[in-house]
């Protein structure tokens, strides 16, 4: 009897699964906190729609999108020409500021973009070269394939055509950067604006760049030098009435803006 019940239950669940439409989204891990919450709220009123978001990184996500594995990708960087040529269509959903954070013992409050480039390329190695006390700078970098690494490289190093120093701690996640910067004297790192709180909680602080403090306001008005946009990308323009189009509209709606704000990013006006 018990067996029969279980069998019946399995069948019912199985049918429910079969009846549901399933979609796989994915891409940037920066976009993931937005996507996860948005998917949860978006599907709450649609019991027969199932959406998952795979945090595989911007590059891989865009690749899988053009291959058809994903039907919508999140990207934390601008699309390359080759990706646009392949028919991918980005829709900007939010702004993000890369925030430069330092350990609490660092006495510097502002860096110019040039100084930042010097520190990350290894030509500036002591805090006294940028107005601080005599202390070695411990550079914390991200893994080469992360979108945040790519954004920092494009915004800070590429304009000067220089490369990252290799003499840097390499952290795999925003959270690991926060932990290592907060616990290592003389450390400097960069994270998304949404992760600054983790650092300030642990006693670290965010730096102003070129005299501009990172904030929602300075990012939106474009005065903060290290800002970037986050995108939802589809292959070809999202079709009217498709779930992807409805989802992008949801993210851009007033409710979506609340989600974006709560995830620590800046909704577009």
């Amino acid at each position: 009897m018990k067996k029969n019940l279980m069998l019946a239950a399995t069948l019912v669940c199985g049918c429910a699964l079969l009846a549901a439409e399933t979609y796989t989204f994915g891409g940037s891990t920066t976009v993931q906190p937005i996507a996860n919450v948005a998917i949860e709220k978006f599907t709450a009123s649609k019991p027969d729609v199932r959406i998952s978001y795979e945090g595989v990184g911007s590059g891989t996500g865009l690749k899988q999108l053009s291959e058809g594995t994903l039907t919508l990708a999140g990207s934390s960087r601008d699309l390359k020409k080759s990706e646009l040529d392949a028919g991918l269509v980005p829709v900007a959903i939010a702004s993000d500021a890369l925030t430069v954070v330092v350990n609490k013992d660092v006495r510097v409050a502002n860096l110019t973009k040039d100084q930042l480039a010097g520190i990350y390329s290894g030509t500036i190695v002591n805090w006294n070269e940028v107005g601080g006390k005599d202390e070695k700078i411990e550079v914390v970098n991200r893994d080469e394939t992360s979108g945040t690494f790519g954004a920092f490289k494009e915004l800070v190093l590429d304009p000067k055509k220089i490369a990252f120093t290799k003499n840097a701690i390499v952290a795999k996640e925003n959270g690991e950067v926060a932990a290592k910067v907060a616990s290592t004297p003389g450390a400097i790192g960069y994270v998304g604006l949404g992760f600054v709180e983790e650092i300030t909680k642990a006693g670290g602080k965010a730096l102003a760049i070129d005299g501009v403090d990172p904030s929602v306001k300075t990012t939106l008005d474009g005065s903060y030098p290290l800002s970037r946009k986050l995108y939802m990308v589809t292959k070809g323009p999202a079709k009217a009435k498709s779930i992807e189009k409805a989802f992008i509209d949801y993210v851009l709606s007033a409710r979506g803006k609340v989600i974006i704000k709560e995830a620590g990013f800046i909704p577009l006006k």
Partner: protein
Amino acid sequence: MTKVRRFMEAGLERTFLACALLSIASVALMTVFIFRQGLPLFAKVSLPDFLLSTDWFPSRDPNPGYGILSFIVGSVFVTVMSLAISVPVGISTGIFLAEMAGRRFGPFLRAAVELLAGIPSVIYGLFGIAVIVPLVRMIPGGNGYSALSSSIVLAIMVLPTIINMTEVSVRSVPNELREGSLALGATRWQTISGVLVPAARSGIVTGVVLGMGRALGETMAVLLVGGNAPIMPAGPLSMVRTLTMNVITDMAYAEGTHLTALFATAIVLFVFILALNVFIQVALKRAVKESTR
């Protein structure tokens, strides 16, 4: 009746054989998989450029660098340093457990060692970040994320292996040897160093090599405390990236030649571990021969 029994016997035998084949198949499949994913790299990067260059920068565009020499050196360096710490401590503890620990303290110590063996490696890593890294930063200096910190964490991790193997092999030395030595007037220390350890050496060496394998293959713990900078380690206080760290750091997002290079890194690690295993087999065979002599 006998027919049924014979049938059952044959069926059981087949089942067991199938299980045995399953594990062989896993190893074979894994080998084929890693080599198939990794070998295409050498169509783009020459073997010397891969093994003998220290230039690792797969995301550089143009001219990406795929040299892993720094990581090979890092792996060997960290492994050797961790053994330099764990071998003396581990062998001493093993001998103590086998020969000197009393009925009360022995089981207590043994339970502690077994517990040490069961702790997941990420916990070792967190312990390393919270305790070892600040200690290394404070006492010898540097930023704390270093080859030394990794070696200390690894040393603690491989201790149980070395301790257990030493204890078991010292215990299995025939009692006549022990008694004979003491009867000849040798002190306890002379008995241990002159009779027991030489008699148990194959087992002890096996334990050390097993520990070496574990240290070489460990990923999570060293990832958290090694610093992970892709540079040639300049000394114990320098940051380090090992082969395993290199594979895991970019694996989640890598694509194209970069991904292939990570699999090729895994091949190098695989060959290292394979060589160690062959060494263990030979050492074990020698141990068996000696004990049956």
